[in-house]
């Protein structure tokens, strides 16, 4: 049906004016349609394009292809709009690794299971674990021993405070939804499902404020101890299992959170130049 477009090839002159953009659109379009289907003419075009341009483009392709893919958490953080260096720093936190998250999830699950099986009387395990999971996560998210990038972080012109807060937020984002979901499975009144949030959100700033003085490890130990004694004492003392998260106590947590926030703010103000408040 065609007279055979196979035998015909665009002559060099025609291709040159095509590449130079000198052809009108219809002629250009027809050259294009032919070139895209004709091996000989495609090769001819390859020889006519600037070699530097060809190589420069290839260099970019090679780089992209050879670069190892970024780990999932970093890609996730990038997707959320964080710049890549920040994402890398963030993902280096020990508590953002899979193992830690799985551990937190498992202990929370067991605590929930205990509460569920006991019909709400054994609430202590859940109330003990739920606020501590984010606290411990934050505590191991930074500090010289936990951070493989510590040497880099210490020397980089990147606010340490900013990094710590960023990681804290990342930990909260990764732990809180799981806890919230599990909380929904708790027997008893509906408000219980969210009640653990009060101590959880109070203990994190307390930890950060303490860590500024004594370092994250000691601070974590102190917070852990205090919270455990509150929960255990309330159980031993024959109080209602939900006592640690009742309304009056929530007020105390709020006050604690505010106080801790104030301490951090004041120290930040003092140490602004050095950025080492936390």
């Amino acid at each position, binding site marked *: 049906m065609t007279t055979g477009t196979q035998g015909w090839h665009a002559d060099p002159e025609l291709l040159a004016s095509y590449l130079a953009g000198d052809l009108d659109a219809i002629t*250009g379009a027809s050259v*294009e349609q032919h*070139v895209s289907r004709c091996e000989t*003419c495609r090769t001819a075009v390859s020889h006519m394009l600037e070699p530097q341009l060809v190589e420069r*483009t290839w260099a970019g392709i090679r780089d*992209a292809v050879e670069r190892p893919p970024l780990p999932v958490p970093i890609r996730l953080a990038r997707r959320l709009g964080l710049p890549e260096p920040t994402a890398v720093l963030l993902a280096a936190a020990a508590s953002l690794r899979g193992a830690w998250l799985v551990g937190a999830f498992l202990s929370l699950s067991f605590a929930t299971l205990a509460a569920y099986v006991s019909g709400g009387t054994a609430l202590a395990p859940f109330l003990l674990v739920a606020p501590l999971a984010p606290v411990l996560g934050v505590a191991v998210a930074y500090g010289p021993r936990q951070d493989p990038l510590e040497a880099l972080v210490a020397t980089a012109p990147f606010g340490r405070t900013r990094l710590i807060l960023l990681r804290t937020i990342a930990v909260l984002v990764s732990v809180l939804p799981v806890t919230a979901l599990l909380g929904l499975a708790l027997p008893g009144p509906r408000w219980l499902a969210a009640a653990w949030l009060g101590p959880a959100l109070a203990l994190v700033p307390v930890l950060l404020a303490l860590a500024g003085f004594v370092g994250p490890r000691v601070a974590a130990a102190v917070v852990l101890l205090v919270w455990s004694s509150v929960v255990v004492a309330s159980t031993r003392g024959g109080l209602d299992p939900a006592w640690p998260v009742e309304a009056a106590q929530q007020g105390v947590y709020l006050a604690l959170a505010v106080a801790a926030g104030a301490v951090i703010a004041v120290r930040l103000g003092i140490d602004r130049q050095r950025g080492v408040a936390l």
Partner: protein
Amino acid sequence: MSATPIVTDAALVAAVADGDAGALRELYERHGAWLHARLIRRCNDPEVVVEVVQDTFVTLWKDARRFRQEGEVGAWLWGIAFRRMVSRLRSRKDVVLIPEWDVPTAPQEVLPSAEELVLLGVEYGDLGAALRRLSPEFRSVVQAVVLDGLTTKEAGRLLGVRENTVKTRLHRAKAQLRTALTEPQEGWR
């Protein structure tokens, strides 16, 4: 001397799917240049074109598996490249070129019209002239859908009109071309 390549494009794509970077390079050498040339006619920012060509081959590297063996590699690559460019330029209307069909910019003596017709695979009627008689709205639709291979939806997005408008215009443009091409040859069959 057309040095017929021993390895077909499709085989190279299959090799790329297996992680052969050498095959990627070979495909780039075969297709990079004409893709570049074709894109530069549609975008007046050379940097964007370089990036789009790079994107295209990086996509090829990642998605080589998704190539259907019976298809044509060139057409597939063009589909990736042009869609990349359209989506990249959505926010920058200033650099998109809808080729102007009226201006014969260079000395046209280079090109006998017989060749033009062969190129278009049309053996009767003057398609070039018929295309030139289309209104600008019709031309841009023919350009985007028929020549550049966008779907009517994508063309609508590129041209800033609704998909149905693209369909209607395309339909009318085709009808107009058909009339223009067949009328002078009435009784020729």
